[in-house]
């Protein structure tokens, strides 16, 4: 390897510096936004509960308590959120279900973020024929029916929760790529990109340094919309018997069950729905706050 004037280490150090600058400022501005700070706190509590909550209860996810079937919440029996129609403890199931819902939401969104941004930004920035080919690939993948794709995966690889992650991630990045490409196309026309080119900055650095930071506002909003969407898609898959399988649970699956018993055992719907709703609210507020915080013009 030839040692170009700015060494690799130095460039990385510098990039680190830029990232820190941007995120540090964003953090400072974020802290001033009360709704966002509260949401962060609530989301933190939800995540902690989901991670460690199930250990607080003496019941497990699959344990059926034949003495307490479809029982209302009570402190005495230890079923704090009540039980479902086969006597399983809802407290444990809601929190354990949250693990899967949140993990899918965050992981699938992370994948779509990573792939979507780099793919979309590259297509938009290169333009011309490369852009055309890259976006036609997206169109083709887009045309593939989602359910068909999921069923195909299940048939080939067998039923596995990881596959749900893969399937959702594989579909979600398409939207992200389109959004990012569109933004990049309009950003590319801006004079500061031309100015960067005129001062000898390479294409990759322009994308990384000038295009991506300017995309963040839109991307962050889209991410906060994607996480809830992914959680709901997972519940839809579960409903069709393709998602999480019994005795494991997810919020979507629990709400589905709860909705059917709404009249006789409303707690079966209320608790999972409460957690899902709370989480989605938090993500929305955080997204909104992040968008404002990432824009240097909003002080």
């Amino acid at each position, binding site marked *: 390897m030839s040692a170009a004037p700015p060494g690799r280490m130095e460039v990385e150090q510098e990039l680190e510096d830029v990232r820190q600058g941007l995120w540090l400022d964003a953090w400072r501005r974020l802290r001033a936004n009360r709704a966002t700070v509260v949401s962060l706190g609530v989301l933190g509590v939800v995540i902690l509960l989901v991670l460690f909550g199930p250990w607080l209860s003496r019941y497990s996810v699959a344990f059926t308590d034949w003495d307490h079937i479809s029982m209302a919440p009570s402190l005495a029996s230890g079923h704090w959120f009540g039980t479902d129609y086969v006597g399983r403890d809802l407290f444990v199931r809601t929190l354990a279900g949250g693990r899967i819902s949140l993990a899918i939401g965050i992981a699938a969104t992370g994948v779509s973020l990573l792939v979507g941004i780099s793919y979309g930004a590259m297509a938009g920035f290169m333009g011309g024929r490369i852009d055309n080919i890259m976006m036609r690939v997206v169109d083709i993948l887009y045309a593939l029916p989602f359910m068909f794709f999921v069923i195909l995966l299940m048939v080939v690889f067998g039923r596995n929760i990881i596959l749900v992650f893969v399937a959702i991630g594989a579909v979600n990045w398409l939207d992200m790529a389109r959004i990012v490409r569109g933004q990049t196309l309009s950003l590319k026309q*801006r004079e500061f990109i031309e100015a960067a080119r005129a001062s000898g900055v390479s294409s990759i650095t322009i994308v990384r340094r*000038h295009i991506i930071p300017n995309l963040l506002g839109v991307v962050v909003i889209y991410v906060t919309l994607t996480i809830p969407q992914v959680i709901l898609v997972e519940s839809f898959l579960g409903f069709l018997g393709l998602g999480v399988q019994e005795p494991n649970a997810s919020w979507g699956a629990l709400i589905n069950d709860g909705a059917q018993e709404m009249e006789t055992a409303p707690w079966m719907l209320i608790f999972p729905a409460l957690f899902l709703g709370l989480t989605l609210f938090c993500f929305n507020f955080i997204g909104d706050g992040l968008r404002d915080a990432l824009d240097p013009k909003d002080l």
Partner: protein
Amino acid sequence: MPSILKTSDSPILKVRDLRVRFNLAHHSLEAIRGVSFDVRRGEALGIVGESGSGKSQTMMAMLGLLAANGVASGEVWLEDRQILGIRERDLNTIRGNRMAVVFQDPMSSLNPYLRIEKQMTETLRLHKGMSVASARKRALEMLEAVKIPGARQRIRCYPHEFSGGMRQRVMIAMALLCEPAVLVADEPTTALDVTVQAQIIYLLDDLRRDFNTAIILITHDMGVVAGLCERVLVMYGGRVIEKGQAEDLFYRSHHPYTAALLNAMPKVDEACGERLKVIPGSPPDLQHLPSGCPFAPRCEYVMARCLEEEPGLETVTGDHARACFYDGLGG
């Protein structure tokens, strides 16, 4: 820093027979038709012309920044190196380093998401391989050189915290960071107030002396040229139609177009209510250029010959040259 103005005789930038062609859907269009000029070290050259005369595209072609459908031919020699059509990677070692640009609109030429400091040090780190600390120090020096008050605090600001004139100063400081041999200023004052315009022009003139940088000023404003440039190039329809010392052009113009341009400048001492003078007609459509002189349809001295053949650049005196058949002007 060298503060003696050295205008050595060997040109630092040589442009030879530069042509730019844009391929459109069904045909192609020649936007620049054989432009040649020299720029010497520390010299200020003005390129003047109406919109569409090809003055900006000349610069874009020199820097390899043409749109994707643009093709440039000819030669551009910067410091004895031919740079037209070379690889992007090699070009990137020259752009911003040996030849830098100041764009027209300072409001949109800075990345709104990065502090001034980051944007300034980027070039230095890239071309000079400077450490973060020394790049920062150099950026600060340059901000002080372009007379930004409180540079030490201002360097930590975002672009939107600057006024238009201040942003243009930042752009100029950025362009000069690597002490380029040539600075191209593409209508640097068009988007600014008149009072700020004058400040920027004086600033450019000072910096040219301080850094011994050649400046190519692209503008449609004769007043701006008069304030800064020693030599002037007048472009029309993608060609140079007159060039020479600024004084020769201003007082002894030998081309009807240059004369008309000068005549069209609003004058403060003109009687109120008098209409501004204009050049009748509109700039030529590059797709349907007339067969003879491109200015012939608008020229008040047009002769039969003008409509048939296109005049070439001919020397009048010294380095004053013009492309016109009519002899009654100048002197």
